[in-house]
């Protein structure tokens, strides 16, 4: 397996979508190839961090009262 083939399968590897034989092939390549191993590690971190985004909603949100006011007006109008 070369790097291009390996990288193409990294999401599937992370998501548990590969057969045991495919997993073994990719993991063997990762053990021997630090750049691909690096890509895989970073993808794993991205996936884990993305899950945390949903858990706590740290995005700066607008004032809930302002939007509620707009909803109230729309609701009455409709």
């Amino acid at each position, binding site marked *: 397996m070369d790097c291009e083939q390996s*990288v193409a399968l990294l999401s599937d590897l992370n998501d548990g979508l590969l057969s045991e034989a495919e997993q073994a092939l990719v993991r063997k390549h990762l053990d021997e190839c630090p750049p691909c191993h690096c890509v895989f590690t970073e993808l794993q971190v991205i996936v884990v*961090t993305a899950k945390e*985004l949903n858990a706590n909603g740290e*995005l700066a949100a607008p004032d809930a009262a302002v939007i509620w006011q707009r909803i109230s007006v729309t609701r009455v109008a409709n």
Partner: protein
Amino acid sequence: MAVTEVEKPPKTDYELAQQAATGDVAAFEELYHRHFRRVYALCLRMTANATEAEDLTQEVFTQLYHKVGSFRGESAFTTWLHRMTVNVVLMHFRRRQSRPEFTTDEGETPIQIVQGTENPDRMPVVDKIALERAIARLAPGYRSVFVLHDVEGYEHEEIGRMLGIAPGTSKSQLHKARLTLRKLIREEAAN
């Protein structure tokens, strides 16, 4: 003899939805305050535009007000509301004719890593802020699939149905989105 006051448990979303369906504005307002941030966050992540996200949040809750009676409690209220939110955002994309472009696997330029450019010792810090910034820079098609799958937890089959694409295309778009995010985060860290 002192009477101990038993604190009532907070109403469930389903109970509030049932009350809201009868025109109980206070119950609807409670639902709004419980779910406002999550709905806004989903709209913002999908549009990468704060003004559009505010407008869409308003639209979601306006629709909710009219449709809340159709919630039967068969799934979690959050799941139901999030599906409604995704539909509102996708309708918005279609209205402004900027629906995310989804391509098939054929004809796409493969993302390659170039040997020698990766430095395993220099992994950038992937914190939530860096990831949020990178998500906002993704192409709309990649962003929708990534947000729905990796942030919101939808399966490819469901994403395919919502976006009108094949599950395989969703899977392929997700992989490319993740690789693009990695590249964007690395670029940001290098600057």
